[in-house]
């Protein structure tokens, strides 16, 4: 979780009982091993930008319709 906006969203969702995480925090070439091997000199600006802004939401077969409603509504309120 690298950016303030991700941390803020994480705190807000957790406070509302919604589990979240950042599973793709870096562009692939930003991983230490690929930096060491010399990749990423040109960079992928879109990948880097998006990786600072993505988050995973709960998606699994045990979610009820009201769970989904709660998740959607909570997220819509955050944007406001």
């Amino acid at each position, binding site marked *: 979780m690298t950016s303030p906006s991700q941390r803020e969203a994480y705190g807000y969702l957790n406070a509302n009982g919604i589990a979240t995480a950042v599973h793709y925090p870096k562009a692939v070439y930003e991983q*230490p*091993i690929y930096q060491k091997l010399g990749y990423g000199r040109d960079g992928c600006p879109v990948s880097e930008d998006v990786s600072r802004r993505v988050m995973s939401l709960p998606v699994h077969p045990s979610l009820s319709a009201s769970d989904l409603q709660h998740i959607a509504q909570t997220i819509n309120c955050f944007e406001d």
Partner: protein
Amino acid sequence: MTTGEGGMITTNDNALADRLRLLRNHGDTGKYNHISIGYNYRMTNIQGAIGSEPR
């Protein structure tokens, strides 16, 4: 020990154990921090069941 595909390694060498943990999980030290090349050697539950069966 083999479990049909892969298996188990035991060691009392901490440095070796650390390297093996990296090798089995794409060089990830945890939290998406990949410091070396590695592989997907994480065992499935079926393989684990094979490995846990007493001989």
